[in-house]
């Protein structure tokens, strides 16, 4: 056959394959149908979007930057009103502004942390699960050791130790970067352990044997065959880890404080002695945190059901 005829035939075979394996329209992903099937997940998405958009657009929403001199006013501990939707704190700063700006930090650190923790854990799991032997043994024992250390304590120590040693990145100042790494380190052993089990399961699959038989290298098998097959679990792990990461960030901010406004920091320090007389200081940052975590929990759970229906309903 001529080269030209091959060129004509290849698209035709691909078209046939596509036709054979194409999902029928009713099985393709349809957000509205997904929302009907998973209303709790859809509610989670809506909540996440609302919080995310409001935090992102904070400067446009009648706020004052909490890190500006302008934010300090003489309206100390004024309750919620049309001027101050969420009231003011001890220093006369607008709690509405603090909550929205605080959301930026909490969400940013939460998301970056989970990405770092999950991606790091997954990569290490791929290496350990596929290479096996001493590498697997070593990495698994390191993970076991880290599990043995109280994780919050470890994160606190790392945060304090790292903060003076890290550079300010364009979108991530040293303080936030230290917190990200501290929490990511906290999450990585868990992600590693879950993903390693999945890698081991996939490695014994027939498609891996087939790939090995036709001479595919280990690196290729890892990246082209195993990784795509565990991606669903990575996504599930990411979404269900996010609320925990956000809560951990809030915990660290509560315990260690934070230069930047964050929900956890707003619930600590000077504010606490006024909670009884000025409950809005606790309610609004706490509610923002609770709603965000609730949203991510619902979304993560629905994603898990969608990607792995066998787990549906299990605790």
């Amino acid at each position, binding site marked *: 056959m001529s080269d030209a005829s091959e060129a004509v035939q290849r698209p035709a075979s691909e078209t046939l394959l596509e036709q054979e394996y194409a999902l029928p329209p009713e099985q393709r992903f349809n957000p509205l149908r997904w929302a*009907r*099937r*998973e*209303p*709790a997940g859809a509610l989670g998405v809506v909540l996440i979007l609302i919080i995310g958009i409001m935090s992102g657009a904070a400067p446009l929403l009648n706020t004052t930057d909490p*890190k*500006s*001199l302008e*934010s*300090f*006013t*003489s*309206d*100390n*501990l*004024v*309750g*919620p*009103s*049309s*001027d*101050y939707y969420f*009231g003011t704190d*001890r*220093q*006369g*700063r607008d709690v509405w502004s603090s909550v929205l700006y605080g959301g930026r930090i909490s969400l940013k650190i939460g998301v970056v942390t989970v990405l770092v923790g999950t991606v790091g854990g997954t990569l290490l799991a791929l290496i350990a699960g596929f290479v096996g032997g001493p590498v697997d043994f070593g990495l698994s024992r390191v993970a076991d050791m880290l599990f043995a250390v109280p994780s919050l304590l470890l994160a606190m120590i790392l945060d304090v130790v790292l903060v003076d040693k890290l550079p300010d990145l364009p979108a991530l100042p040293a303080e936030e970067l230290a917190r990200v790494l501290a929490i990511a380190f906290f999450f990585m052993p868990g992600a590693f352990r879950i993903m390693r089990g999945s890698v081991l399961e996939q490695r014994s699959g027939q498609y891996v044997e087939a790939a090995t038989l036709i001479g595919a290298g280990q690196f290729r098998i890892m990246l082209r065959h195993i990784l795509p097959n565990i991606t669903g679990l990575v996504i599930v792990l990411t979404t269900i880890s996010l609320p925990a990461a956000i809560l951990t960030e809030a915990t660290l901010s509560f315990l260690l*404080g934070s*230069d930047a406004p964050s929900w956890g920091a707003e619930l600590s*320090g*000077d504010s*606490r*002695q*006024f909670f*009884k*007389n*000025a*409950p*809005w200081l*606790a*309610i*609004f940052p*706490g*509610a923002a945190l*609770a*709603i965000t*975590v*609730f949203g991510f*929990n*619902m979304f993560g*759970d*629905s994603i898990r059901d969608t990607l792995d229906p066998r787990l*549906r*309903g*299990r*605790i």
Partner: protein
Amino acid sequence: MRDRDNYWLRLQGRKTSRRGFLAGTGVAAAGSAAILAGCGDDDDDDDEAPAATAAATEAATEAPTEAPTQAAPAGPTRGGTYRSWKRTEDMGMDPAVFHTDNQEVVYQVYNHLLDFQVSKGTFSMDGAVGYEQVDESTLVWTMREGMQFHNGDPVTSEDVAFTIERPPGLLASLGATHVPASTYDYFDSIDPVDATHIQENWVGPRADALIHRSRQYFGIINKKLVLAQPDQTGQEHVRGMAAGPYILSERNAEGTHLVRNPDYYPHPNPDDGFVEDGPYIDEYDVRIVADNVTARSLLESGDLDAYGTVDALEAEGLEGNENVAVEGAPAGGWAVLGFDGGKWRDQRAREALRKAFNYQAFINSIHAGNARLQAPLTIINTRFQRLTQEDLAGYYNYDPEDARALWEAAKSDAASRGPDQEKYDSIYEYVDIHTIQGPAYLAISDFAATNLTEVLGTTFEVSSADIQTWVSAANDNTDDVKPWGLLQSGTGVGGGTDGAPDASYLSWFDPAQYGSVAFNFRHDSPHPEIAEGSAHVGEQMLAQTQELDHETRVQIITDLQRWILDRAWGIFTLPMAAESYLAVSSRLRDYGKDDWFNAYSGNNTPRREAAWLDQA
């Protein structure tokens, strides 16, 4: 099959799922938050809120003890345990070495020759029954008879003479002590004349000698036991070291416990603060409580007798609690940002900082709109203060443009200096404001960092530490620059004065005291302008302490204050609250609220044997 994919059908057939659990708790949390939010202030009174705050504050000031006084018995009753708190463990027990978090011991376990009532400017006799200023440089004490240390050793004139002459020796043996050298550097000799008289011979006149003698450094100590210690201090505090009204019975990580000294000497014809058969209270229990919020909860629940000073907003929050009495008192204390003289050598930089500070915003935000400007001598020391608020407003004026211009000019000159000067010029790139861990300290530092960063365009950041680490950082003289850029101290609400001008802010500028130790404004500064200025301040400080004529002394002090203000020298004094309050238990009586503000009367443990607890 499609029906089984319906969420609601699945939900029906499901028991408790993880999602259900999460959803339930989430909804419950959000609902609770919404209900609690509804309990907050409504929209209608937002304009009236500051006025309401002020009114409530006034109410707290005027009638704070209404509830407890209804049940108050006719007179003092004996007994009970006074419960107080402190943040951290003490650094040591020797009154001539440490004064951080050990003041219940310093003032209740040790005794002094006399006590100074700052609010009245009078002395109350304690270990002494009198004194005679024989001439300008000779002072003779008459001891109270019958005093004995807690181990039964009699207190002799030898012990008292040893107590007074000991600090210079400690300075030599320990290398450093918090006792300012100016407190004792005028001693020529201290001689026990006979069993009950001690004569102090000075090299020259000293105006505040008596006030100094009431301070913690001169707690009467057992000479025999001190000399038996390896380092010849009372840091370990063996029983018998002191002769005060209480005996230290417990000292551990949870706090200290003091019990009444059964052999304490009587005070016939007692002066203010003492009673003949005092003290009335049986025991002291001082707990270590890490943070204010917990301590405040203890006070509110009736588990603490003294919380300490609070500002107007905190006072309002405590209003109406039957366990708590809030009383207005003269505002005391200080709030400062101390310069590191190693780095802040350029007067333009110091002036830039002073002009960059938005005083009104600070007063509004930190002191709820009610504060006063502070002079280099605290304004609560009224006997020596001649500078008015108008005078001070001429120095403390917010001018961000001028501030930026001065800062840039100083920065430009710094850039032209060689790399060997880099450590002295780091403030133009980054300034660390180092403060003590605690909400009020952090609020002040946070404001300052935000304000100065915004106006000067250089990053100012806050770092904080516990009090002991903070003290170490303040006194760190391993290099000729400090590990911090600005040292924040005080809240402008609590604290106070001991009545002597050189210990009421002025000591902070003194190159023989904090000016050198804490702030690097020293005679041997590597910067000639700092060294020369320090020499001038040192001369004037000495001159005022040696001047016995009050008006002349005040003139020296006023001139010195203007000199300091003209040069933005040493430390930057922040506005302080115009009003302050004491939060104590509703059962505490006659605790001497005005003299609580004596900076050296003890944190939450003032020496007042007339204080009593209403057991009813």
